[in-house]
């Protein structure tokens, strides 16, 4: 049944990021921190950002969850690394608007592949979780203790 819909959600790239997540692991030193958690299904991720002069110089994440949430977290890190805060926020907004509403997928680049998730309404929050955590991290202006402290 419905193989097409499943294949559409579990795209190769998603499965690949799920197996080998990028930027996985905490940062030695970070200036911003975000925590995304879905108590109902147990998805739980922490994001560590090192922001200098308005630019996300470095980003890492830890945690566990389903293929959608993990690949979303992984791809998020690759997308925002090196970007300015404003640009990252904009990307986040565009992505959420694309997933939650009928927003355009232009300017989303490879994030477009999450299109298939929209056919699985209960899985949508798996795709959005890490972006929510990013927004939270970017709001967080005060420095957070580095993991070394």
């Amino acid at each position: 049944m419905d193989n097409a819909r499943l294949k559409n959600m579990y795209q190769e790239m998603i499965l690949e990021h799920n197996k080998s997540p990028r930027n996985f692991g905490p940062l030695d030193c970070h200036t911003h921190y975000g925590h995304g958690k879905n108590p109902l299904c147990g998805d739980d991720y922490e994001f560590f950002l090192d922001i200098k002069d308005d630019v996300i110089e470095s980003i890492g994440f830890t945690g566990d969850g389903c293929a959608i949430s993990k690949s979303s977290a992984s791809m998020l890190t690759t997308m925002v690394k090196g970007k300015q805060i404003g640009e990252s926020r904009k990307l986040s907004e565009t992505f959420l608007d694309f997933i939650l509403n009928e927003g355009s997928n232009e300017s989303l680049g490879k994030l477009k592949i999450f299109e298939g998730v929209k056919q699985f309404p209960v899985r949508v929050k798996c795709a959005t979780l890490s972006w929510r955590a990013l927004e939270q991290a970017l709001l967080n202006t005060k420095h957070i203790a580095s993991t070394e402290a």
Partner: protein
Amino acid sequence: MFVKEKSVTTLNKKMDFPVLNTTMRGNRLVYLDNAATTQKPTSVLEAMNHFLTKENGTVNRGVYYLSQEATKKCDDSRKSLKTFLNAKSEKEIIFVKGTTEAINLVAYSYGELMKPGDEILITELEHHANIVPWQQLCLRRGCILKVAPITDDGHLDINAYKKLLSEKTKLVSFCHISNSIGTINPARELVKLAKEVGAKVLIDGAQAVSHLKVDVQDLDCDFYAFSGHKCFGPTGVGVLYGREDLLEKMPPFMTGGDMIETVSFQSSSFAELPRKFEAGTPAIVEIIGLGEAVKYMNTLDYKEIQNYEQKLLEAAQEKLNELDITLIGPTHTKAAIVSFVMNAVHAHDVGTVLDMEGVAVRVGHHCTQPLMKRYNVSSTIRASFCFYNDMEDVDALINGLKKVKEFLG
């Protein structure tokens, strides 16, 4: 022997349950989330529908026909439940919203009789509904919550349990069957041990009523709680059995209409049992539905059902073991509930792929986070069987899991 085998493999009740005869995503529905909620037989649906379309009225105070009939039906339902549980008196059957309200009722009301330093003993197997109300009680009254551990194979550690019991233990509360991993607790033995130190015992029977014959006098427990929707009745109703002498001593929980004797602005006196604990308009149509579910359960041969469900369980476990999965919890003395993780695939993804096959299982922590932690997992895939499932359902689950492997493995 042959006859038994035959009856065991031919038990087929699917026809009694309309939902099981719907198609799902183009396949027949394979419903394996019975621990969350069971389906309802036609007789229950018809009783509810008949009442609502022909006889709907309120209970207790009406002298008119509709109200008399509604009252009689609710009384009959209480009588059926008394007999079903083998309670001594109908006064011991309190209608509540579900297991959760039943346990909260005891925690609030019996809790009023507890003192600082009194201990409450639960187990590592418990559902949040049998953990959090006791934590809150401890906060309110300065009592102490103790937790009896389980062994790696998912059974209660009886020695540890014994050691935790003392004359400080005022209340013991454990599940009859674990919703998460299926463990069947040796309830009678646990009650006996608790009584030796003078503790009162509540059994969370949410999972038990659909799987085995419950006899509260034989169990010798003080309270027994379960939900209608988990034993072929509707949502919105459940039962708290309580020993009459204890219920008599306990203050009311919720207050309002129907549970009072007289009210003045200075003070009020409370009605006799069971009404003392049933404030407000009861869940009339739901109580009637539950009464009908009891009638349905009375037609079942629990021995036969247990045999049958164990066959399903054995087959499921055997076939699961051939896949790349890890079973969590016990392998014996358990109800037909299997909990497992798939190596390298997250439970949530498994659930989605199975859904596409029309196979309904539960993935997550099953409201037993401490138990998940005990097994160092954040969630499991749980397939919980009922007597209306069959070998085809087991096969559908296994085929679905193979497909998961294909897609995501």
